[in-house]
């Protein structure tokens, strides 16, 4: 891709991000309910005190002014104070972000680890029992409501059989020293097997619940693209040349078959960020998704605005990366 095209694509992001900011601001402004009243709900406070709190939160300014202030600060990386935590929004979000990222990545890895081998095998042994079982399994994966399935897993594995912990990220005694903020990485860096296993035990259920629909989708994509590739002439040619089936598969077919899988994975990871909140709620995972939903309900405007902007940026960048990846990996496609 030429640098000019790259730049054009990047510049294209700006009106989109502006649009997102405007939409979320308008939505929050049009939503009835007042954060000051929510904060003082059911507690004694005079109308003067409520008004003082609203003033303190900066809510008595006209909406246009508030919007201007928000955008002006946002471009400088400042997103105001969380109305309830009364600390900078950027700080509150940054504290919860690693947990969400870790969960999303764990779900992604789970999905890939399950989907790719299954997809390849299903394609290779097309029509066999494995193919049919895998296809059915994937349909099951996209048909399960995550919150229901998650609760059942929780009751089964955590309560009934006591195999896995009920909630949280890690037990206190198993914590590795915090270097990156990502528990898995820190465990490996510190060389602590107990931390790693403890984190994985806590991650298992939420990651599986979150990653199952994605695994289903990716398996189908892998299978169908593998089938397409296997039909290609150059595969037949390679086999005719006398190369072993295994080598043909791994070296030639897989590389090309994985291309759609990777691009779809990049796109779906964006969707993972959105699917987080239900799983985080059920499993008590201390991530951003749960925080954002709670913030919408209590009308914590600055936090919702900043979080949505963050999601939008991430999603748009992921889209962009997917396109880029596609271009790089498939030289026949030109932007």
């Amino acid at each position, binding site marked *: 891709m030429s640098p000019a095209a790259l730049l054009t694509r990047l510049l294209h992001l700006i009106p989109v991000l502006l649009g997102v900011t405007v939409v979320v601001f308008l939505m929050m402004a049009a939503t009835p309910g007042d954060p000051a009243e929510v904060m*003082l709900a059911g507690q004694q406070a005079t109308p003067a*005190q409520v008004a003082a709190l609203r003033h303190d939160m900066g809510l008595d300014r006209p909406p246009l002014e508030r919007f201007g202030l928000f955008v002006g600060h946002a471009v400088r990386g400042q997103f105001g104070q969380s109305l309830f935590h009364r*600390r900078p929004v950027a700080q509150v979000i940054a504290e919860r972000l690693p947990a969400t990222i870790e969960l999303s990545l764990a779900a992604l890895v789970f999905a890939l680890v399950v989907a790719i081998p299954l997809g390849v095998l299903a394609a290779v042994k097309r029509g066999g029992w494995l193919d049919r079982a895998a296809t059915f399994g994937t349909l099951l994966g996209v048909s399960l409501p995550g919150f229901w399935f998650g609760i059942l897993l929780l009751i089964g594995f955590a309560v009934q059989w006591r195999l896995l912990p*009920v909630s949280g990220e890690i037990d*206190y005694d198993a914590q590795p020293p*915090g270097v990156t*903020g990502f528990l898995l990485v820190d465990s490996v860096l510190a060389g602590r097997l107990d931390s790693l296993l403890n984190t994985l035990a806590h991650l298992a259920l939420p990651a599986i619940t979150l990653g199952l629909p994605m695994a289903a989708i990716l398996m189908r994509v892998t299978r169908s693209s593998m089938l397409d590739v296997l039909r290609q002439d150059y595969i037949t040619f390679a086999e005719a040349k006398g190369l072993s089936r295994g080598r043909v598969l791994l070296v030639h077919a897989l590389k090309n078959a994985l291309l759609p899988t990777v691009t779809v994975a990049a796109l779906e990871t964006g969707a993972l960020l959105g699917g987080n909140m239900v799983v985080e709620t059920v499993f*008590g995972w201390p991530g951003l998704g749960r925080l954002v939903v709670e913030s919408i309900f209590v009308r914590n405007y600055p936090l919702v605005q900043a979080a949505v902007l963050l999601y939008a940026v991430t999603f748009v960048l992921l889209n962009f990366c997917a396109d880029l990846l596609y271009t790089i990996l498939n030289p026949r496609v030109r932007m």
Partner: protein
Amino acid sequence: MRNNAAFIAFFAACLAAAPLAAGAAELRIGFTSDPLTLDPANHRSRETETIIRLIYSGLAANALDMTVVPDVAKSWQWIDPKILQVTLRDGVKFQGGETMTADDVVYSFTRLLKEGAVGGQTSPRKGLLGPVTEVAKVDDRTVRFVLSEPWPVLPAMLTFQEVVSKDFTEKVGTPGLATQADGTGSFGLVQWRRGDSLVLERFPGFFGGPSDIPPAGKACVDRVIVKIIPENAARVAALLAGDVDLINDLPAHDIRTVEANANTRVAAVNGTRTFFVALNNGKKPFDDVRVRQAANYAVDRQVIIDRILNGRAAALNGVMSPAAFGFNPDLPAYGYDPAKAKELLAEAGYANGIDVMLDTDGPQKDTAEAIASLLTRAGIRTKVQVGEAAQLRARWAPDGTRDGDMWISSWGNGSLDPTDIFVPTLRTKDRGNAAGYANPEVDKLLDAAGLETDQAKRAELYRDAQAIVNRQAPWIFLWLPQDLYGASKRLVGWQPLASGMLNLRDACVR
């Protein structure tokens, strides 16, 4: 960084040198929500205060029977209706090592009162100090609260504030105080993983807590781990699985499961949150007192309390809880009498019944539907409408649209004083007066009681006001639920407090 590395030097040294010895007692708590902040002056949430009170102490605290007792204060007295003089205890130490003096107390309360004193913003807890205008130091062991008008309830309101260290706060600033702590409470902060857990360690230099609460001594457990588990089923599951020793906010219907489990038990205390159905007194049909009374006769409160709340609530005939100041025990109950309800409706001109809507938020949905079906059987055909809490509040505010008929709602009364609940919910046009009840006689009684310093007279004024309200039935009177906790049978030395605070001072896990 989410990984709070703000070790207080004292604890860091302990941990580095000697890891927790085997057999040392650890108490794990499953708690409903993450504290918003650790700054005692910068929040307005009861759950946040519960956690903060493990680390910090205040001038006053609640005993088990909710009487107000001195905590880091030694005593207080009104030297003037507008001046409260407080004498401080000796030998109260902060976890960082300093000794608490009057300077810390003055600093803490000035921070609460002054505009813009909390990181450029005003403390949201300022309103809890009412007409207090300043706190002045008299000497190293004495401070004075100066008020703009008499406010007899001030000592009770002091249970909602905590004392911070002047030196520490000036050193780390308001941003630092949100995530680091240096308090005078029984436990010191070791780590706070946002949204996940807090780890606290026993403070050996703890002054012992309120001497009025026997037995006064140091904490028995060495470490407290607070795990944040917002999902009800998961929290109860954690208790049943033995992952935690204590949980708060136990849902009423899980009582049987917890009691049936060999290792767990239920702990309960009469709560301080009154539940009621506000009727729209300004709109037909509930502008007629007979219709309102009919609604009260139509609801069989006992069956709802027995079936949905598992018997864990006390039916109320007014707004005050039995433990509150000035409670009137002689209020007549309306009782369950659907025939009488129909009679009253006919008298008021609604012989064919009426059609109304009952607003509710998600958590109260079950109760609302049960009430609706009882009302419908008595001729008050009710449809339930579930809304979002924030939206409903806006709609039912005195200056809101107020187009609903009924709203099942609640109001807390942590101080157990009428000024905190009777006034906001039933005084004409006050903030919490969703019913739109306007009675000048009641207003006069409430205003007079607010200024009356003779406690006996004050109580009588409130009793009279309650009697009037009971007769006029601006609400469907409901109940006062108990606060329910689940605990491991190994947990001893702990009792639940109606204020919602967790006093872990004497708690032990055997």
